[in-house]
């Protein structure tokens, strides 16, 4: 009771100086909680960013240059879907590809037979003029690359006639794709049309997968998949998964370094405030000692004061951190980062620890001689 009363009076009597330390703790807490929130969310955000880069796992035949056979249609790819549970990864998109060459007005063009509805999910950065196709086989519709469209003057809604010797097909163009890559030179048709043009039913050159999850989860997924599909080669696209892992590690290191730096700066600010307060409180400490107060009991009061400072600053700062994390999310990732309430106790505990650094100058109070203080020296 009296302890609380004394604590309240201590806080009130030095509110000017303590306000400076409180602002430092609030600021530190806001930045630390925001960074911790970003840290916890960074894996998901980076995964989302890297999934924009396109497929990150490719399945091909054991013998290079040979096609696989997609016997049983979609069922043959069931392992790819089943393995997501085991690895913690998530299959965002998957499509088999069969490449052949056909002629348009006598000019050879690569025809890529695939599940047409999967293209925008496999390649989120591709732009389209016209419409994407909503089902695997497209019902006679196709997509063509930008350069092919320019070459043959094709536009969405127009028809394109493909031929390979005696076989030919007429495709209605649904959209023109701008990929910024070699795919701009291709025609994307449904698989049965490509098989018919090549006279090679059920042939598949490769299967592309866009898998979400951490680089470790994707690696595990690829491993499980390879074990369950022994007749195929499963290649994680290392450039993407490794870059993701490296960036994630570096970002985490940067965030942890910044958190430590912010904590050190906050502690310094509290330390400076408490150094000044310790000097001012020498007379009070001398008197309290004269009245029978032990240094443990007296310093306990000041430590409680620091604890309150850290806890109050930590709580207020955490709410500021929610707003800051949301702002960082929008500015850096283009999407808000959801508050992570579990970091509140951690941040508050860190701020209490930081505030306790201000107790260092209080050590000097242990040496205060009441007789000297009471003489007015």
């Amino acid at each position, binding site marked *: 009771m009296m302890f609380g009363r004394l604590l309240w009076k201590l806080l009130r009597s030095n509110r000017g100086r303590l306000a400076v330390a409180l602002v430092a703790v609030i600021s530190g807490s806001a930045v630390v909680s925001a960074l911790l929130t970003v840290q916890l969310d960074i894996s998901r955000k980076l995964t989302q960013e890297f999934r924009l880069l396109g497929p990150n796992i490719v399945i091909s035949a054991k013998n290079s240059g040979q096609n696989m056979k997609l016997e049983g249609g979609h069922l043959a790819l069931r392992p790819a879907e089943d393995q997501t549970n085991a690895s913690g990864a998530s299959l965002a998109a998957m499509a088999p590809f069969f490449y052949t060459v056909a002629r348009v007005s006598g000019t050879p063009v690569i025809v890529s037979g695939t599940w047409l509805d999967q293209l925008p999910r496999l390649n989120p950065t591709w732009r389209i003029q016209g419409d994407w196709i909503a089902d695997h086989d497209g019902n006679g519709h196709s997509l063509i690359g930008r350069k092919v469209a320019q070459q043959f003057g094709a536009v969405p809604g127009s028809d394109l006639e493909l031929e390979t010797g005696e076989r030919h097909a007429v495709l209605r163009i649904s959209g023109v794709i701008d990929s910024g890559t070699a795919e701009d030179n291709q025609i994307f048709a449904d698989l049965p049309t490509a098989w018919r043009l090549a006279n090679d039913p059920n042939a598949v050159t490769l299967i592309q997968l866009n898998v979400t999850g951490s680089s470790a989860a994707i690696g595990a997924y690829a491993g499980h998949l390879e074990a369950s599909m022994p007749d195929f080669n499963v290649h994680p696209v290392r450039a993407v998964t490794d870059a993701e892992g490296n960036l994630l590690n570096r970002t985490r290191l940067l965030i942890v370094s910044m958190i430590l730096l912010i904590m050190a700066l906050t502690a310094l600010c509290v330390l400076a405030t408490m150094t000044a307060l310790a000097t001012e409180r020498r007379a009070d400490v001398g008197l309290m000692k004269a009245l029978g107060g*032990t240094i443990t009991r007296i310093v306990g009061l000041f430590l409680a004061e620091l604890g309150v400072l850290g806890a109050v600053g930590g709580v207020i700062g955490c709410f500021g951190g929610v707003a800051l994390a949301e702002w960082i999310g929008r500015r850096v990732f283009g999407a808000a980062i959801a508050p992570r309430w579990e970091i509140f106790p951690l941040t508050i505990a860190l701020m209490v620890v930081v505030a306790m650094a201000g107790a260092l100058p209080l050590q000097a109070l242990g040496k205060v001689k009441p007789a000297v203080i009471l003489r007015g020296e």
Partner: protein
Amino acid sequence: MGALVQIENLRKEFGNVRALDGVSFDVQAGEWIAIMGPSGSGKTTLINILGGLDTPTSGQALVDGVDVARLDEGGLARFRAEKIGFVFQQFHLVRYLTALENVMLAQYFHSTTSESEAREALTRVGLADRVTHLPGQLSGGEQQRVAVARALINSPKLILADEPTGNLDEANEKIVLKLLQELHDEGHTIIMVTHAPSIGELADRRIDLAHGRLAAEHVARRA
């Protein structure tokens, strides 16, 4: 009544300066002693040693059977809380605590606090209407009366008053001395440092110090 305070061959040196040089005397329980002497004669040093605020270089200072020189930091704190009530010339109140809280502060370091007892103590020194005032809102005399209430609150064995009226005007001096007289009449043991002979005469016995030595001892005529 037996001796509450027994001082024997007490010495205190600060570097080359000898503040106390073989002082010996006893104080009986319930006695009021005035320590007098010029500045630098060792009065305050003697009071500080008796109050456990300082330790002697050699000699013995027994207060209620406790040898102050043998106590460690924790023991001295306990000794001050339980056996001594201080009244200082500069009042020494905590500026951000009310009169009531200043009195309760002594209770807090002694054992448990009782607001009603603290109010009673302030009422006794005539400050019933000033309990919620901060020291800065009180006159010098009122502040000293808060200090007296604080000194009394734990029923100490010994009240040590170092120039208790040194900073007071005549009217407040009378009030504080009247309070000390009442405490003495109730049986409290008081050792008071003063420069003023007129105040020294109020005590049962007057001890004069000079250059850290006991120069003279006078028993009041009325005693």
